[in-house]
């Protein structure tokens, strides 16, 4: 009977409920904002990759500089990413002619070197690690891996 007496007294019930619910609400709202930030950074990453490859296609730097260009294009969003995790795996892009053709017909290589089909490019798979904080950083200490694939040609190769 003594144990039941406090349960029948509803004074302070609303305060107790708020003490439980408000933190839950805050966690849910924070999760929403984390998801929004995650999506925004993914879009920024895709955009930065496209910008870097577009700069390569316009002849501003060689293939080897794409990783640096990607990092520079991230701009203010760099704080969300880990520079050391940028990984670009490149393969010769599939084309009808161009570099592939020159490689296959060895005897024509000299003729084609300068100019019959002087275009080429690359097919890149770019990955980078997104360092999530503060909420997701607890759940995912290694971050989230973003990956994208794109391909372009440029002239001259």
């Amino acid at each position: 009977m003594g144990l039941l007496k406090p349960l029948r007294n509803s004074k302070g019930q609303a305060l107790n409920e708020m003490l439980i619910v408000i933190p839950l609400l805050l966690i849910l709202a924070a999760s929403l904002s984390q998801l929004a930030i995650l999506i925004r950074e993914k879009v920024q990453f895709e955009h930065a990759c496209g910008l870097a490859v577009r700069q390569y296609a316009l002849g501003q730097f060689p293939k080897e500089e794409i990783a640096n260009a990607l990092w520079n294009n991230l701009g203010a969003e760099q704080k969300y990413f880990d520079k050391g995790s940028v990984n670009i795996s490149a393969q010769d892009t599939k084309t009808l002619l161009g570099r592939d053709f020159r490689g296959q017909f060895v005897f024509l290589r000299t003729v084609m070197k300068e100019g019959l089909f002087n275009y080429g490019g690359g097919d890149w798979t770019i990955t980078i690690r997104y360092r999530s904080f503060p909420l997701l950083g607890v759940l995912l200490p290694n971050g989230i891996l973003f990956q994208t694939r794109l391909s372009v040609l440029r002239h001259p190769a």
Partner: protein
Amino acid sequence: MRKISAFISESAAGQALLATLMFCFIFVVLFAGLYKAGLSYIQKEKALRGTDMTALSVGAVYANGLQLVRYSNVALMASLIADVVTYVGTEGRVDLNLRGKIQNIQKKIFGIGQSGDEPSLISYPLLFWLEGLQMAKNNQLMCNWPGFSNGFNLPLLPLPMFLFNPETSDLQRSLIPNMALKFRSAADFMPEFPSDKVFYFHADPNGSGRIIYHPLEEVEPATDSEHRGQMWVKPGLPYQYTYCKMKPVVTPGVDPKFKNSFLGKSLDATRELLKNIQFDVTHADDPHNHTVVVCDQLPSSISKNSGKDTLNFHSLSEIKLVGGGLAAWDIAQPKFKVRLIPFEPQKLPVLRDWFVSIPGLPSAPAIPRIGDILQQGLPRGPSAANPEDIGKMFGIDIPSIPSIPGGF
């Protein structure tokens, strides 16, 4: 059930539980909506990037082709020298006509016709069209042209769609790969008659009652008008953005009496004769204009219409080639560069004008607005965007379908 109902409605704990469940439901809906919207943004960015990459790639192959034109003109020059040396050396008995052979090869390879640029499918332009298809696939864009994967079936709207040099040719010609080239002829060295002048006019906005006239060079199609053909004064000029009407009477560039006289007709006839004397390959337009527009869509797994369909993202990109001449003496000039041009939605009225200029098509509806771009699919009705209308353009009978999914 009565106990549960009583627990929820009468008990404080039950009401708290109900409120908690409602909040959780709201947040789940918010999460799902945010996730779907975010995926859409990511896919839209990928679609824009994919068409940009495809357009740049097509431009690279196109630029390579223009460099090949320069090389062929060098070969033409060398063949001309060889012909002249042989002719002079044999005292006129032997004419190798190597230059004619080289010109025939140029005509075949670059798709150049007698009366200017004639698109050809068996030529270099076909190469950058095929490379464009391959690059669209490499960038995960849709490619549903006939092939082994779809049993060589031609879809209603084959994608990617390319427009080659649309600004200086009509829509039908721009759908077929071409390089906007022509043979320079002797007639190009004759001065042309001054062209007829068209003037546009408007009232003085200051209310003075004066009529202000502008030549055609000072006006452009108005981008914010729903009336097709409405012109306004170009920005940067006095009375900029003022709507104007065309003067009904055209001011002739040359006195009609002179044009119809014996001398005027003789000059015209001489020009026609000189057009048959062809030299090297050059740009078809002055100033030269080499542009490619790419239209494609990125398929996605995001569902819409309660899961009955998937959301596809259309995108348009345009590139322009900048460079010098194509003559043999331009061989030392820098190679042609590819430039990505920001696509302007205001150009849509111009595109619509292209469609309605095709004879036999029904008149188009109101100029599409920015909001139409964001909608998935244009309203159905007599429209140049309908597949059967596009089929009429090519003389193909295409059955009608309920709607074009993912229209732009």
